[in-house]
């Protein structure tokens, strides 16, 4: 009934108008033979992964699979023990500041300065990101575009919900014109409406050519908004497919099959 005009079909039409990145475009996020160890534990083993402009790459996997570790190496928070990570062509280990200039990060909990307003927070982080000259009007516009109610822009962040803080996080990415966006379980704990708004928001960024890597447990969201899906297990990528390849197949089935393989192997 509703589905014919619902968001899914709308999305399908839009996807047709703004196809995924051409496979030959240079990746904005690229890990090559990435290895990261914590003591004896190899959290990421020999990972090869590339996210191209206009792509939403959803990284699935159980807790401890290495998703967050991968994201943190892209951010330069962690130094790889082997291989390399690049952001927009910049080697993160060698040129972390150049890499960070080109990416934005939305963690599971976007923690902002609670005593400052959303606008002041955006102004600060955008300025740190190298965009000092943005006017208050422009920054307000960005926040409103990201879905923050106009009335909330000048209120202290301590009054914000989690979803509102996520929107400020996205606004930072927009303000600094990030080429790559790293999302670490951004929709966990969001109610379905906020979760859908969030998906729409990142879809907007994708259409602008931003390459997005999203670690998530939300299989539904992954299938809904992802252009490509990777399944990680024990630090390795065990499956990688486009959402078109999945088609009508049951992503949950595929995912659980991979997890069972592990248990069977044990």
């Amino acid at each position: 009934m509703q589905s014919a005009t619902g968001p899914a079909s709308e999305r399908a039409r839009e996807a047709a108008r703004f196809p995924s990145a051409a496979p030959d475009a240079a990746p904005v996020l690229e890990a090559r033979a990435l290895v990261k160890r914590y003591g004896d534990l190899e959290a990421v083993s020999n990972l090869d992964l590339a996210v191209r402009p206009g792509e939403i790459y959803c990284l699935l996997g159980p807790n401890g699979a290495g998703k967050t570790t991968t994201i943190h190496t892209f951010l330069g928070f962690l130094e790889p023990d082997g291989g390399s990570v690049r952001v927009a062509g910049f080697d993160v280990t060698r040129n972390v500041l150049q890499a960070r200039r080109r990416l934005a990060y939305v963690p599971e909990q976007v923690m902002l300065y609670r005593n400052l307003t959303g606008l002041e927070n955006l102004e600060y982080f955008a300025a740190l990101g190298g965009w000092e000259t943005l006017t208050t009007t422009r920054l307000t516009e960005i926040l409103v575009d990201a879905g923050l109610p106009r009335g909330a822009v000048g209120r202290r962040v301590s009054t914000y919900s989690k979803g509102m803080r996520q929107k400020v996080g996205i606004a930072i990415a927009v303000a600094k014109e990030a080429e790559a966006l790293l999302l670490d379980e951004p929709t966990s704990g969001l109610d379905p409406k906020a979760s859908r708004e969030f998906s729409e928001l990142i879809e907007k960024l994708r259409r602008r050519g931003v390459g997005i890597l999203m670690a998530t447990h939300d299989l539904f969201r992954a299938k809904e908004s992802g252009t490509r899906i990777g399944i990680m297990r024990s630090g390795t990528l065990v499956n990688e497919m486009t959402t078109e390849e999945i088609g009508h197949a049951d992503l949950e089935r595929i995912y659980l099959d991979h997890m069972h393989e592990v248990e069977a192997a044990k």
Partner: protein
Amino acid sequence: MPLGIVLRNERRLLAADRALAAVLGVFALLFAYALLNGMAWVGFQEETVASAREGNVERVEALEAELVDIENGGSPSSPFRDPRSASVLGGARGAHTAVLEPGPLTALAVGQSDLLPYYYDISIYTNESSLLQNGEIENPLNLLIGRFDLAFVVVYLMPLLILALGFNVLSGERERGTLALTLSQPVSARGVVAAKMAFRALVVVGLALGVSLLGVLVSGGFGAPGRVALWCAAVTAYALFWFTLAAWVNSLSRSSAWNATVLVGAWLLLVVVLPAGVNITAGLLHPLPSRVEMITVQREASNEAVNQRSELLARYLEDHPEMAGGVVAEEANRAALAWAATEAVNERLEEVTADYGERLADQQTLVRRYRFLSPALLAQEALLDAAGTGDARFARFQSQVREFSDEWRAFFVPAILAGEPMSAGVIPRLPAFDFRDEPTRAVAARAAFPLAALTGILLIVGFAAARRLRRITGPA
């Protein structure tokens, strides 16, 4: 590092944080109160100095008038207080008060100036014992902690303000979660910490120097710009030491609570325990002879001297054969005898006080050697020296007073021994004391040492903090 961006954000955060703003407000009041307290002390000291000077003039004028009167046929007010007698004029009646004006920055650091005497009544009877007397009887609590002046607030309390502002610059960001978003921007943890500390240093040093300069302005201390510069340098270096220490503790990546505990512990150790420890050790290793002992020695010597006056006189005249001919009149003879007794007492006293002086010097050497243990000791030394209220200016005053005392005695003693009467004509020739202050260059040369040591410690801690902070790449 976009320093300006962080500074602006920190200003906003500070303005939005009522608790921090309140802490700053309380400290601003403490600084202001300390300054008022120092200024009140300077006012009191200036009043005392002025009244001592007035007393000098009045005394001399009264003596001159009496001498003129006697010369015109009048009689002395009392036969025992006849100003024609050199021992009366140079002794009880004509004593000259040697005074030390407050130092140019005393309003900022009262230091020892309320403890050490800043005036002495000099007469021919002045001896080592009178130089060791303290002028003021003080509230013991004041003696213990010093007056509540700006130097006290800077050395003891300012570190606490710095720690309150800086203990969690990095740990707080991590605990509140904002560090993740911050470090995902093109900035380093080191740069962020440096900028946040720079903002706090601007606030604290600005406050401390602002109040200091206000004090200098009000109390007219700009006549000594070198001392003012030295003061400002010491305040800045000391504050920066605490900021770098806070940065270093933050670089260890522990919790804010842990940081606070360690930093308060460091404050307790460096500001309270070590300085007290050094002083106690100095007192134990080189104990000063008791004052009671000194008084006993003085009394014994004086009794002995009275009992053996004639013997003493004979001995004295043996030592001073040139005086023998002059001792003719009975009155003069008595005065000469009294003088010989005084000299004998002084000689005995000098033996005791030489020992006292030696032990005091040993104590000071020990304190000087171990002051490097605590930046608080170094800062205090530099601050008091800059203000002119440390040991050095008082030692200089005492030594000039000693010289003056000798000069005074040299003026009267030959007349006493010769039994020469004094006339109104000698009054204008009476010696007068005028303190010659140390040139700023000499002060700077001396204070440069603790200041350089403080800067050295600050650089070492800062370097260690920078090295550790460089390794912090993420929010975990």
